[in-house]
């Protein structure tokens, strides 16, 4: 296995934000599995400062752009109504916490590179969005998150698109990862509760008007296998 260069390592960490959909546990599992199977040098000491710098640039440029990332978290604790704008400090705190977790692996103990657990947590996050009345376009009162613009696809499911329908992720490593998550072996090992959630996510995804017939057939097959 070729060691990854700085750009590839940073790219994989950046994409972990997208595919974990805001869940730290999911992100930990994603990165642990990537590291175990396809990217052993992901957090290697060598060039780590350069990797951090590149991740900061990518995550910051994306997160601080309201068009690309329209979700804004409101303050939890006080009733003050100042604008909850996204700042560089939010990016700094977030990335510092991520790199600190992977420097002190004991903080990751509850997470493991288990693909079944990872599949379950991605499906769980998909379901959280798709159960809202307007899918990914909805604000979340309980999470105190507002959206200032519309998602291009409010009914997108990370798991269905990439693990079940093989939509390319733009990264070879993530393509392999989602290939594993969508394998019969992993799907069969999903606990009952996760199967039920995945069925619900597939049902929602199936309601899309623009779904290709071949994809619909595939999803129906998966659905039958789950129940």
């Amino acid at each position: 296995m070729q060691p990854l260069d700085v750009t590839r390592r940073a790219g994989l960490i950046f994409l972990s934000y997208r595919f974990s959909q805001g869940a730290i546990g999911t992100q930990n599992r994603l990165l642990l599995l990537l590291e175990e199977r396809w990217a052993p040098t992901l957090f290697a000491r060598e060039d780590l400062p350069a990797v951090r710098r590149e991740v900061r640039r990518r995550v910051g440029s994306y997160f601080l752009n309201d068009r690309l990332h329209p979700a804004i978290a409101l303050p939890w604790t006080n009733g003050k109504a100042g604008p909850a704008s996204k700042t560089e400090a939010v990016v700094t705190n977030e990335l510092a916490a991520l790199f600190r977790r992977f420097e002190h692996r004991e903080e990751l103990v509850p997470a493991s590179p288990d693909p079944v657990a990872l599949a379950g947590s991605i499906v769980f996050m998909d379901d959280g969005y798709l159960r809202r009345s307007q899918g990914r376009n909805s604000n979340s009162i309980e999470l105190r998150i507002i959206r200032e613009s519309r998602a291009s696809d409010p009914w997108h499911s990370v798991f269905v698109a990439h693990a079940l329908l093989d939509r390319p992720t733009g990264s070879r490593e993530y393509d392999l990862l989602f290939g594993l998550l969508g394998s019969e072996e992993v799907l069969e090992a999903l606990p009952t509760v996760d199967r039920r959630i995945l069925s619900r996510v597939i049902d929602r995804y199936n309601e899309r008007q623009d779904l290709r017939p071949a994809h619909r057939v595939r999803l129906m097959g998966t659905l039958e296998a789950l129940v």
Partner: protein
Amino acid sequence: MASDRQQFDLALRRWHRLHSAGRWSASWFDGITAVVTSSFTDNPPDSPAAHRELASFRGEGEEIANRTDLAGGRPLLLLDPTRADIDRVIQDDEVANVYFVGNGSLSMLWMAETDRYDWQDVSSNTTHLKQGWCYQRQCGGLTRRLNVPLGLFMLARPTRLVAALDDAFDPPSLDHPANECMTVVMEGQHMVYDTFVAGRSDFGRFRQAAGFDQQTFVARLRQLRDVADNRADEAAATLARTLMERFAFDSTGFVRSHRRLIDSALADSRSATVSEVARRLDDATMNAAYLRRVPLDQTTRLRAADLAAVV
């Protein structure tokens, strides 16, 4: 001595010059993040409280620098800086982000009992505009007639200034909920003298409170004035009274004092035009929020929603 308006105009002209000339710092992610922690404590010298406060400032500065480093940034920690140190930070175009930690107000950082680093110092030392953020981790009191935020004129984008606007700030740690009173002070790019004069503006902070952005809120108020101006006396008086009733459950002394004025204006409808009443409602709401005597909570949102429904 120049009046505060002259000082402001001078600073603004300088800012526009730098802007037009394209004198920028490094980008926020490439540039250095300077963390400036003041050595001034307002506790008695050598008291345990003084030592605790200074240790807290330094600890906070170190933690910010550590996190910046871990997150791929380039920290520069200045513990107990001199005035010249801060001048250099402001003049160094490799520095893109600046944190101030210490005692102070929205417009200044205390350096010593008789010395403070002020917004004019920032403005006069600025040789370029920083493309990053400025975080003022000192109290954000509006203690003057003109309350220009300390770091405002060093920033390329005024919307990147974060401070504890009109609030005390003494967080036990970087992650303590007390940090949530740090807020973006300016929502728009326009810097106008009146924005910073006590009582004349809310710094655009109505965005969340009103349930819509400040621009829309101001547009609504303008509509209200137009409606009030164009209606026949009776209808306009009814409108104004309805609005006043809807504002009436606001319990602050400030609004109450305005309410008395509104009441007296309405009592003699011949002498008071409705647009004057509407103006007073406008002022009362803005000022109450500005002085933070009204928590900008559900109550404010309801009132804003009512207002939107009426106009």
